[in-house]
């Protein structure tokens, strides 16, 4: 008896061990093939290594002997082989066309022979598991199979492992597609012998868009093997109408926009404008709807601006299409009702479409920077995948409402909420140790970098608030300690980011890099506000969310206008632009005043609410850091304003002309909004109040222009009256003295042979002492934490 008992134990032991051993072996092979593929020169060898690695990876799925895992295995393998076949055949065709199989000869060949290139690119993107292809769902199902098996360490490892293969494929895409082709002319293949490739491509895309049909055949198969009935999670995606409208618009722009940039730009801005009425039909709550309205409003301005910005660029229609699809992804994130389709649209928003839009200039620098940002986004998505699937596994529902109802407080759920918070905070680029990875790339065209900074990054805090709301709603019974801890820690991360990003902004010398740093620091404010989850805190955070959207986009558009008219992004080559571009200067000044929180401008009121909220909850440290942040912001913008717009006129600026009215109209609209929201914050606070009611926090007592918090209140109209009365008195003093005015030289002790270059204090020689201290802190950080540090100058 005991021998059989022993036998069982041994078999269990052996079986247990062998499963364990198998798992480890798979992991080793997986990593080995990945590294080999990463550094190999020959295209076919790279594909073979990655094939072996991923198959082994899928094999480890079988170590879990649940029918769900087996169904996931079958579904994944099927999709996997569809893509591998397509990619492999396309690669062989390309090698035959180019004549050699080493990667360097194929540099840029993909674009020269598009008929072979498209299936190859599609295969590569599919292998990465990005949305429009079926492998996106099969990977999702694979990870959920692991999670279903109980562990949550191995799925995270798996998701991180995917990053290794992502690097392999992105390297191939970068070389084959985004480079200049210098070789001899290639001969493209006719349609008929390329047709099977396109058949596979269409099959994979259909599987990606309508996953429930693709999954249906595999469910009974799983039933054959073990206990039937336990199926793969419902993969139905709900497509909101505005998203479809925008996608259709993107196709229209791609088709009609080829002729002229003006037509393409105006068409795409019309598409966004016309998408607004379709919002009325969608059933999203006021929170999602108001974000959607803002997205579309900003998009119309952005496209109207880029009509004249992209004038001397190339392939504008391709840029507009990718931009529109990215916006449709963002719209999907804001409107979708369940977390699953939110993640689907999230992947569309920060997937390869954004990569193509960011690398639009196609010079080496912009491709390299865009790749870095794409890698960072993919890593963020890995966190989200695991978090979402754990939440589904615990609550059993995708839909937000149902998820909140049967939300149980288990430590796995705490881990899921933590992962999701990390993913969303990473999207908002907090604690930027390597700004070129954390944030959207500098050399990308200004319309898209302005739009990402002001609107796309907001999806991070937007979703974070939703998750916090669900967690806090669900865990009413027991005080969900980890949630308070997560909220407190994310508050501290926000506060530290404010100081860190603003002090790095002091060091940098390029306009766009400075604005990027300030986006991160202002997002720190939003996260500090939102992570308090009190009514004041959330209201402050969301108001800053809206204000920041307007004044940050305004500043980016001004920087773009300056870039177009002077041709340089370096601040120290500019000087005295205020005279040549007065309107741009006025808009820029309004942006600076609102971002540094000067009263009467929009930045002030939201910061006021955030400070009160933080002080009410008693976090003194966060309050001090965030208050200090606004002075840092003002100091770095003084540097920007002085060295670019004021001071002596440099010769590069002599022939600068005022921006065209295509640029000026959006800028002045945003400037007007910044001032309007500064004086009448009620306009934005009314919808925010209704959101607070949705999040069942009690709304603020506000009027159109004042906010009251307990005993003290702030009334912006009163401030406007007081300040303008004071300025009126000063004006009266001016008016009393009708003395003559006379133009004279600037006083430099009478010396008259100084050239403007010598006498202009540019951004390089501003604040040496503050820079010394910040550089010292960065060196200290490198020594202690060992990170490569601020990466500021490029």
């Amino acid at each position, binding site marked *: 008896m005991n021998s059989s008992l022993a036998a069982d134990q041994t078999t269990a032991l052996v079986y247990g061990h062998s499963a364990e051993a198998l798992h480890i072996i798979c992991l080793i092979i997986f990593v080995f093939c990945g590294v080999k593929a990463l550094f190999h020169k020959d295209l076919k060898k790279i594909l073979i290594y990655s094939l072996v690695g991923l198959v082994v990876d899928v094999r480890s799925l079988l170590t879990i002997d649940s029918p769900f895992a087996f169904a996931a295995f079958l579904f994944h393998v099927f999709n996997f082989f569809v893509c591998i076949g397509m990619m492999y055949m396309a690669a062989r065709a390309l090698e035959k066309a180019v004549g050699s199989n080493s990667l360097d000869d194929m540099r840029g060949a993909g674009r020269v022979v598009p008929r072979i290139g498209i299936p190859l690119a599609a295969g590569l993107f599919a292998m990465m598991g990005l949305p429009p292809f079926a492998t996106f769902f099969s990977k999702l199902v694979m990870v959920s199979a692991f999670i279903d098996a109980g562990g949550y360490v191995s799925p995270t490892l798996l998701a991180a492992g995917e990053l290794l293969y992502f690097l392999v494929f992105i390297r191939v895409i970068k070389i084959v597609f985004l480079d200049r082709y210098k070789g001899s002319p290639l001969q493209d293949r006719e349609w008929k012998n390329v047709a099977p490739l396109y058949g596979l491509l269409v099959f994979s895309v259909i599987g990606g868009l309508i996953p429930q049909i693709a999954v249906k055949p595999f469910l009974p198969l799983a039933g054959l093997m073990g206990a039937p009935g336990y199926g793969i999670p419902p993969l139905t995606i709900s497509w909101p109408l505005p998203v479809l409208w925008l996608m259709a618009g993107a196709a229209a722009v791609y088709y009609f926009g080829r002729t002229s940039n003006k037509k393409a730009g105006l068409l795409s801005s019309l598409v966004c404008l016309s998408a607004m009425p379709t919002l009325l039909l969608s059933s999203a709550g006021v929170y999602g709807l108001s974000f959607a309205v803002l997205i579309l409003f900003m998009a119309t301005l952005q496209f109207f601006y880029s009509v004249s910005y992209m004038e001397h660029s190339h392939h504008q229609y391709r840029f507009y299409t990718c931009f529109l699809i990215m916006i449709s992804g963002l719209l999907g994130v804001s409107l979708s009702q369940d977390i699953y389709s939110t993640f689907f649209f999230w992947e569309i928003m920060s997937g390869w479409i954004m990569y193509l839009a960011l690398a639009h200039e196609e010079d080496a620098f912009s491709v390299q920077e865009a790749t870095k940002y794409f890698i960072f986004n993919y890593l963020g998505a890995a966190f989200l995948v695991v978090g979402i699937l754990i939440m589904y596994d615990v609550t059993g529902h995708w839909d937000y409402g149902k998820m909140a109802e049967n939300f149980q407080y288990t430590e796995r759920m705490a881990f899921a909420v933590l992962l999701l918070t990390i993913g969303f905070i990473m999207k908002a680029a907090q604690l930027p140790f390597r700004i070129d990875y954390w944030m959207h790339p500098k050399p990308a065209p200004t319309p898209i970098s302005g739009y990402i900074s002001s609107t796309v990054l907001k999806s991070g805090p937007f979703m974070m608030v939703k998750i916090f709301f669900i967690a806090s709603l669900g865990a009413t019974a027991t005080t969900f300690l980890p949630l308070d801890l997560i909220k407190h820690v994310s508050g501290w991360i926000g506060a530290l980011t404010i100081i860190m990003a603003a002090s790095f902004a002091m060091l940098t010398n390029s306009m766009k890099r400075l604005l990027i740093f300030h986006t991160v620091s202002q997002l720190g404010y939003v996260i500090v506000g939102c992570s308090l989850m009190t009514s004041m805190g959330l209201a402050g955070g969301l108001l800053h969310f809206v204000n920041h959207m307007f004044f940050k986009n305004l500043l980016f558009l001004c920087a773009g206008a300056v870039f177009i008219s002077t041709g340089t992004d370096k601040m120290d080559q500019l000087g005295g632009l205020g005279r040549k571009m007065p309107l741009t200067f006025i808009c820029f000044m309004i942006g600076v005043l609102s971002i540094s929180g000067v009263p009467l401008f929009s930045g002030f009121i939201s910061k006021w609410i955030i400070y009160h909220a933080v002080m009410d909850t008693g976090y003194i440290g966060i309050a001090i850091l965030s208050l200090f942040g606004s002075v840092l912001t003002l100091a770095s913008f003084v540097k920007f304003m002085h060295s670019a717009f004021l001071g002596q006129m440099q010769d590069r600026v002599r022939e600068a002309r005022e921006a065209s009215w295509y640029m000026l109209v959006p800028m002045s609209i945003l400037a007007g909004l910044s001032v309007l929201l500064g004086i009448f914050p009620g306009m934005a606070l009314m919808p925010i109040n209704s959101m607070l009611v949705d999040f069942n926090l009690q709304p603020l007592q506000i009027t159109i222009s004042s906010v009251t918090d307990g005993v003290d209140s702030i009334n912006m109209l009163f401030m406007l009256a007081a300040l303008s009365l004071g300025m009126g008195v000063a004006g009266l003093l001016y008016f009393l003295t009708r003395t003559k005015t*006379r133009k004279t030289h600037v006083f430099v002790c*009478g010396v*008259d042979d100084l050239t403007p270059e010598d006498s202009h204090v540019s951004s390089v020689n501003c604040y040496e002492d503050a820079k010394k201290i910040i550089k010292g802190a960065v060196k200290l950080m490198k020594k202690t934490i060992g990170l490569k540090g601020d990466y500021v100058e490029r």
Partner: protein
Amino acid sequence: MLSRYAVKSPWLFRINTGSCNGCDVELATTALIPRYDVERLGCKYTGSPKHADIVLVTGPITARSESYLIRMLDEIPEPRVVVAIGICPISGGVYRDSYSIRGPLDKFVEVDVNVSGCPIRPQSILDGVAQAIGIWKEKIKIFHKA
């Protein structure tokens, strides 16, 4: 008219056109050392010609400093008084016949008060400033009539 009070705060501005600094040391002492405190009269040394009311010019206007002097004189707002300090600006002083000086101050600007001496005594500077204030008062009236 406010000129009665405006006259009580003359701001002084020093221009050194190649002087041997003897007069400049005297000018400095009138402001800084407690003994000859020019602030009693409401005077204050300003750093910029744009704030100047009474311009104290020292030095025999050497060739190099001629262009600087012309530019700086143009940067001084109108109701102003020019005081030549020491004999050099008045007549070239001991350097009168030298090749490198461009002659007395009157050739460049309409001087109002001459305080001669080499170097001048702080008390005579106070004399000069008091006299300049008198002239300045007339100028303010004329300036505001025009």
